[in-house]
Each structure stands twice: as structure tokens, then as C-alpha cells.
């Protein structure tokens, strides 16, 4: 009983982080209908930037969050506006391959800059933990989870209440109608991408403080994001949260009870079943139809 509870708690903590790492991917998919295969790279850039900034400024890695998000926001806008935008109107394969090409290039650049070795960010409270009702909580993981939930709520509020959020939702629902109402669609696309990139970077920091990372991990984070989006539904922070939590619980339960080598198998079985049974994800059809 205790083991199950501990596994579930670990799964939920991991799931919150999966959710944050997928929310940007989900937003881009929902609004631009682009599968951003360079998403994992954006996450890793966030992790490496946090490593550099926290060492250079001698601050806690979570405090570098605004800086990292600003850098990725600034990089994401031109990346979408001048590169991906050219492939948006081609078939889905075009933008997919374009972003994959960028991912390969950036992965190579990161190997040159940071070496292919595993790196990790260790904040001062790295080994602290506390116990509540017999369950162990790592301080690092809990702070990562809290950061994830706060950021997800911020994004949800941004989309729901701000003018920018309204324009983004309008563009996602009916691009043509939004354009007729005077929305500058390429600009909104680029802003959406920039926001998503900033959240990917934030996810990178959170991932960086709980797990070691290397440039080769990018495919893993892209795939995770895809699975989360399929499970939860496209385009909404709530969908990403549900999908992320589900993925986190499933992978820790599999690792605990079936074998540490099998989380991917159950993950993809779940993915395929989900695509067949409820292709719009658990929270369904948040924005336009996705297939």
C-alpha cells in the first residue's frame, strides 16, 4: 500500500513536469497545426541557459527563469516568422521536416559548445527531502512541481484573460475569420511560437534541476510532448496537465511493477489506444480539429 502511494506521488510529480514540458508543443500544434520537432531542443536550450546563468550570476537556478524565458521568447519569434512560416502552408510533412532539420543542426551546435556529456544543475537544496504521512518528498522535485503548476496556471490565465490570449484563441479557432477581423495572422503565429518557446525553456530549467541532461535527449522530450498532447488534447494547458499527469503515473507504475526497461512500451501502447479510441485526447477538441 505504501509502495503504491509512493509510486503514485512520484508519478504525479514527474507528470507535472511532463505537462510543463509539453504545453508549448501543444500550443503550437493547436494554433499553427505544426508538429514542432525542434521542441525538445528548445527545452534543452532552456536547461543549458539555466546552467550558464546560474553559474555566472551565482543564483538559484529557478531564479534564472525570467531571463531564460526572455531569451527563448526573443529567439522563438524570428524562428517562426522567418523560417517555419515559409513551410506552414505546405503539407504537414514540410514543417515537420524543417523543424527536424533545425533540431539536428542545433543538437550538433550544442555538442560543439557543451560536449556530448551528461550535465546537471544542482541547486543548494539538491539532497534535502521531507516526509509527510509516511511518504518521502524530495525538495528539488517538489519545487520543480510547484514551478510547473504556477507556470501552467500563468499560461492558462494569459490565454483566457489577456488580449493576446484572445487573439491567439481566435486565430486557432478560425484563421480566416480572425484575418477578416484584422488579426495579423503571421504576427500572432510568431507570438504564439515565442510564448511556446519561452515555456519550453522554463520546462528545461525545471527538468535540469531534477534530471541530468545531454544534447542527445532532445528526441526524448519531443516524443514525450507528443504523447502528452495526444493523451490530453491539443492546445490547452489543462489538456497538457491531464496528459502529463497520466503519462507520469503510467511510466512510474510501469517502471515499478513491470520493469524499469518498459515505460516506453506501455507509453506507446497507451498512445495508440488513445489515438484509436479518443483521437481528440481526454479533454477533446480544445481548439480546431487536429487531424
Amino acid at each position: 500500500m505504501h509502495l503504491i502511494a509512493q509510486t503514485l506521488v512520484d508519478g504525479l510529480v514527474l507528470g507535472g513536469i511532463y505537462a510543463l514540458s509539453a504545453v508549448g508543443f501543444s500550443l503550437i500544434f493547436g494554433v499553427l497545426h505544426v508538429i514542432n520537432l525542434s521542441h525538445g531542443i528548445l527545452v534543452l536550450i532552456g536547461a543549458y541557459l539555466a546552467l550558464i546563468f546560474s553559474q555566472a550570476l551565482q543564483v538559484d537556478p529557478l531564479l534564472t527563469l525570467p531571463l531564460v524565458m526572455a531569451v527563448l521568447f526573443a529567439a522563438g519569434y524570428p524562428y517562426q516568422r522567418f523560417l517555419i512560416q515559409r513551410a506552414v502552408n505546405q503539407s504537414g510533412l514540410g514543417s515537420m521536416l524543417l523543424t527536424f532539420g533545425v533540431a539536428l543542426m542545433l543538437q550538433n551546435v550544442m555538442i560543439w559548445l557543451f560536449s556530448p556529456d551528461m550535465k546537471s544543475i544542482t541547486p543548494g537544496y539538491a539532497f534535502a527531502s521531507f516526509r509527510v504521512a509516511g511518504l518521502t518528498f524530495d525538495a528539488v522535485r517538489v519545487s520543480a512541481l510547484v514551478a510547473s503548476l504556477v507556470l501552467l496556471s500563468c499560461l492558462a490565465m494569459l490565454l483566457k484573460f489577456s488580449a493576446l490570449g484572445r487573439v491567439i484563441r481566435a486565430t486557432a479557432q478560425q484563421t480566416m475569420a480572425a484575418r477578416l477581423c484584422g488579426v495579423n495572422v503571421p504576427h500572432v503565429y510568431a507570438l504564439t511560437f515565442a510564448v511556446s518557446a519561452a515555456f519550453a525553456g522554463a520546462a528545461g530549467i525545471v527538468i535540469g534541476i531534477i534530471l541530468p541532461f545531454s544534447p542527445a535527449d532532445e528526441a526524448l522530450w519531443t516524443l514525450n510532448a507528443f504523447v502528452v498532447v495526444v493523451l490530453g488534447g491539443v492546445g490547452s494547458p489543462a489538456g497538457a496537465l491531464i496528459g502529463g499527469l497520466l503519462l507520469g503515473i503510467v511510466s512510474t507504475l510501469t517502471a515499478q511493477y513491470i520493469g524499469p526497461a518498459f515505460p516506453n512500451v506501455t507509453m506507446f501502447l497507451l498512445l495508440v489506444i488513445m489515438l484509436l479510441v479518443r483521437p481528440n485526447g481526454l479533454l477533446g477538441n480544445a481548439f480546431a480539429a487536429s487531424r
Partner: protein
Amino acid sequence: MRRHHLLLVLGCAALLAAGPLALPPFYVRVGQMMLYSAALGVAWTILGGFAGYASFGHAAFIGVGAFAAGLIEVQFATLPPFLALLMGLLTGGAVCAILAAAIAYPILRLRGTFFAIAMLGVSHVCAELNNNVDALQGSLGLNFPPVAPDSVAPEAFFYELYLFAGLAVLLIAWRIRQSRFGAGLLSIREDEDTARMLGVPTERYKRAAFIISAILTGMLGVIYAHSLGYITTDSVYRDDTNLNLVVFSLLGGMGTLFGPVIGAGLLVFITQVILGRLLDFHLFATGLLLVILVLAAPGGALGFIRGWRRRRVQVPAE
């Protein structure tokens, strides 16, 4: 492909067959890689190009075929090498056919990017199971007996074998393209729902194309495993193969018969010959090539040439 194209292909093949006599071993190996890639590309294009179901996970069939063949050949170690290879090919093909038939129903209901990523998942799952189920010996590795006769250098033997296999795959794909079945696949690519409404048995056609593509890929995987001599999970279930199969078609011309052949030749030439010494640069160069392709020539080399021809024909008419 018309009749004189067929003659041209056979002529080229005859010329290529003489390659190992004239080329140094390094280039025979590069040629071997090109022929293998081209054959894989054509096998992929039966589903991905004709029917428009771009798979990101065909390495699953390479791996499953290779391991099925290896495991059965160990049981019959006394057979002469040629018969062992033949048995490996048949077993690999059969197991891939069964796997493809088993996953065809759920997975072919997905379309576009969802199908692509689900296939990537299939490839990862197959690799993981192969690696972790001890009976399949994925992490330990499998040995393949040498099949080349003593009088022939192994690289020349496999070069000719790939050439033969590539021709066979190309002819199969050509026959499919010419048939009613092929026309049905193209109609699925253009508009699946309309095709179905007009009476094309889309489900059956998709499934058939998927299984044929899987069998051919699996058999090529068997030959590949023999040419390596020793395989582990990592050497056959490769994500770069998964990607390259898409890139071959994209580079040469999506949906065309010769596109993957041209694309495979170009990509292998670029990565093995031009960048052969710059290993650190491979990822970057492949990525850059992808970006340039998508932005500058979305139709691939063949699409580019066709567009250029069309423009040249149209100019005097205006």
C-alpha cells in the same frame, strides 16, 4: 516508367554490376550503402509515396526481419550458407508480414503526422522489446555466418546482392504503380475519403501496401544483417534510418518511383564521400540539407526538374 525507362534501368544496372571490378573497396562499400538505401527507399515509397502514408518507423521491419532471420539461422547452423540466407530471407519476410498484418488495422486508421509518429512508436517499442526479452538476444547480439563464397570479396558480393535486391524491389514497385492497385493507392494519397466513396477498397489497398512494404523492408534488413555479420538492437533499429527513408523520397521527389533512388544516392554521397572525414559535422549538414530542401525545393530533385521543364515548355507558347 515506360518501356524505354525499363531498358534504361536494366542498362544502368548492368553498368553498376561491373562497379566492384573497377572501384577500390572503399567506393564499393559506398556503392553498397547507396544500393541498400535506394532499395529501402523504394520499399518505403510503396506505402509512403504512393499511398501517402509516410512512416517514420520502418526501421522496425529492418530490425524484426534481421532478428527473425538470425534466430532461425542459428537453429540450422549446418545448412550451406546460400540456403541459410534464403531461409533467413523467407523467415524475415514472413515475420514482418505477420507483424504488419497484426498492427495494420489499428495503425492505418491514423492519418498524416499521427500515423508517422505512431510508426515511430512501433519502431521504439519493437526495439525495446527486442532488447529486453532475453530470448531474442537483442542486447547480447547475434552472429551471422559469412555467406560470400571464398573466391569473391565480401563487399563485392553484398554489392551485387543489393543491386539484385534493389532491382527486384524497383520492379515490384513499378508493377504496383502500373496496376489498378497502384492507381488505387494514388487515389488514397490524393483524397482518401473521396476514393472510398467512389468504390476504391481503401482499407484493403492500404493494408496490402503496408504488408508488401514491410516484407520488402524486412528482407533488405536480413541482407543488411548478413553484410554486418554481427548485430545488436542498436545496429538495426536505428532512428537515423527511420528519418533517412523519409529524406530519400523528399530529396528525390515524394511519391515518384525514382525519387528515393536519386535521393538515396545523393544523401549517401554527401554524407559518406563529401563529409566522410567530418564526422562532427554530420548532424549539422543533414539538418541544413533538410531545411534547404523544405524551403527551396519541396518537390525534391525530380519535382524541381519537372517544374523547370514545364516552365521551359510554357515560355515559347506564351
